[in-house]
């Protein structure tokens, strides 16, 4: 984990801090291009940054 504030991350992604907050707290699903930008920024595969909703629901069963 990098020691970035929401503002730092928002500036690196060129989005509002509100966007970062909404994505982090699960209130908003980013578009595919933004999700890829986030994954690339953390240098991680996209599935390590975001959890698949279908896998999440199958875990719950």
């Amino acid at each position, binding site marked *: 984990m990098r020691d970035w*504030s929401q503002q730092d991350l928002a500036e690196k992604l060129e989005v509002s801090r509100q966007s970062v907050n909404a994505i982090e707290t699960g*209130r908003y699903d980013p578009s595919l291009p933004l999700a890829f930008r986030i994954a690339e920024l953390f240098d991680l595969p996209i599935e390590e940054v975001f959890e698949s909703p279908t896998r999440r629901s199958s875990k719950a069963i």
Partner: protein
Amino acid sequence: MSATTDAEPSGSRKLYLIALAEAIALAAAAAAVIRLDLGWIGTVLLSVLVILFGYTMFRAGERQAKASGNFSIAIGRYNRRMMAAGAFYVVGLFAAVWAHDTLKLSSAAAFAVAFLPSIGVLWMVWAMGRLLAEEQDEYLRHRLVRSSLFGLGTLLTLATVWGFFEQFDLVPHVPTWAAVPVFAVGLGLANCVPWGRK
């Protein structure tokens, strides 16, 4: 995804306090104008106050958005357009009322004069449309679309219910220009809805 170190700050309290203080001041000024029977001077004074308060609210909102990292170029443009449209609306309304009360207008001129206040409001509607088209931040755009749909739902619901109440002589008539203020109230109410997780 949880990668950062801070949570959402609540920096909007000051903005609400300014809005409340200005609403109280405006109500007091309106009451004074009516009580002292200031006529046209009172109307001009109130118009200037509305423009001034509108301007300070927009500036305060902009400062708060910048401080909390939620400002965008599109929002800045929208604020400026709304300020200009709002000022034009107040002046247009004032001019239209004055012309209607003091001049003998032909039918075409009467239509032109009556259309004058609409220009400011249509300018605002255009500014809202431009905000939607120009906002580059997808989450802010998503919120704007959601709020707009909520505002539209509010307007359709109230117009339908009120229309039938009015039809059966239960409530007084409301002019149709109230559509935009009702829509704006719906836009504002959308921010109070606990949308929760998706």
